[in-house]
């Protein structure tokens, strides 16, 4: 019989698989994106290559923009115009229900993986500051829709070249970027709720039931949209930046 000298609590986990792989990859990709986005925002240069505007700087709303979308902020603003914008998509992703899973697991190790012990000794979840602020996610969703409208406007402007209507690789890059960010935004759990999820009875509101059903379908792939749109928006900035720096040239289809 057992010698009763041990307890299960001595094991951090009994899992034998590579449970650490997923949090490690999230740290690499999400951390890498965060570093690149901060660097790109600090550059305050090479974000416009006619007719393409980098999504990190869109909409460009200060007077010091290389390509002003909407002149809301005067010349007193002398920092990078990206900082006027990036807090919205940054806040939307930071409070997103999927990203919460990803970074709580990988950056906070709370828990690092299922059935693997938390790194922290005590835990209060989202009941206290600062994590109680996760509850404002829907407001970031509303603000992100405004940004999204401008990204579609930028995608339309990407067909307007100095010599007239046309299409280049950058046009496709910007259109795909706006489409992926739309899928990510509209598959959001808060969107699912405000479009009908708050109801207990759908039969009196068939339009809301259809909207909720459609968004529920999108929501099943929210994680995939989150990653693909994140990588693509970074690549879009890289493409516009390389064009603006003259490192590459845009291939025109017509």
């Amino acid at each position, binding site marked *: 019989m057992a010698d*009763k000298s041990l307890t299960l609590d001595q094991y951090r986990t009994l899992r034998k698989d590579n449970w650490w792989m997923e949090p490690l990859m999230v740290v690499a990709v999400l951390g890498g994106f965060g570093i690149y986005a901060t660097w790109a925002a600090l550059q305050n240069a090479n974000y416009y290559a006619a007719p393409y505007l980098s999504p990190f700087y869109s909409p460009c709303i200060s007077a010091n923009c290389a390509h002003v979308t909407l002149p809301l902020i005067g010349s007193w603003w002398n920092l990078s115009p990206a900082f006027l914008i990036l807090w919205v998509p940054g806040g939307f992703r930071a409070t997103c229900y999927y990203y919460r899973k990803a970074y709580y697991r990988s950056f906070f190790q709370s828990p690092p993986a299922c059935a693997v012990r938390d790194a922290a000794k005590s835990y209060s979840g989202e009941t206290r500051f600062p994590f109680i602020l996760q509850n404002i996610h829907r407001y970031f969703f509303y603000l992100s829709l405004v940004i999204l409208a401008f990204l579609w406007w930028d995608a339309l402007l990407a067909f307007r070249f100095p010599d007239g209507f046309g299409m280049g690789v950058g046009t496709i890059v910007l259109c795909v970027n706006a489409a992926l960010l739309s899928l990510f935004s509209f598959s959001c759990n808060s969107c699912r709720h405000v479009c009908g999820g708050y109801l207990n009875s759908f039969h009196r509101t068939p339009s809301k039931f259809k909207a909720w059903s459609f968004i529920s379908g999108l929501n099943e792939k929210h994680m995939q949209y989150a990653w693909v749109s994140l990588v693509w928006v970074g690549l879009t900035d890289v493409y516009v930046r390389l064009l603006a720096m003259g490192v590459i040239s845009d291939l025109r289809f017509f």
Partner: protein
Amino acid sequence: MAEQQVHMRVWRGDANGGEFKDYRIAVGEGQVVLDVIHAIQAQQAGDLAVRWNCKAGKCGSCSAEVNGKPRLMCMTRMNTFEPGETITVSPMRTFPIIRDLVTDVSYNYQKAKEIPAFKPKAKESDGTRRMYQEDIDRVQEFHKCIECFLCQNVCHVIRDHEDNKPAFSGPRFFVRLASLEMHPLDTNDRMELIKQKAGLGYCNITKCCTEVCPENIHITDNAIIPLKERVVDRFYDPIAKLMGLFSSKNK
């Protein structure tokens, strides 16, 4: 899979402590982990304690951790392991051990008692209550729960922080609360309880409950997150609160 020997490490002990004991035993084709535990019990360790009942993944009795992952032993096939692999079987870690693989899950029954029961609307003029298919489809998913408590076991809020148990009901009961809150005929208001006594805010959406659910209930996306959004409506969103004063949500 022809009959072959497997190496099992099974936790033996009680509330005071224990250890992993090694067993080498023959496994036949089509067997599951619970079959092997029963074979150990029959041939090598007659005093091995294990809770089981249906052997069909429907009673939720044989919950344990197989190679560290919360699983139903009756639904874990032996041919999913590599030949020669040592298979570790331990009790659910979140609950106090009674003996060997049997744990005291009474925490869950205490939490169940805290939830106000279904309270239906008054009957319509023809003496009936009506529900529409599109209204009831959403809560049907929650009724698949077999109360195996694997979601409770894997939830780090109580698994790794025993002190949170009084303030947190756990994913199984968020599923129960969601099935009642979203029910088209129910009239009870449980939002204060969901936020305070059930401790929904402790959940940080890491989705382990969904990963281990043997009934594939989308616990996080369909129960917990919608409840969190309803808590926001009531307690954190001033605009939704204002609009709520002027409109009914068909409750």
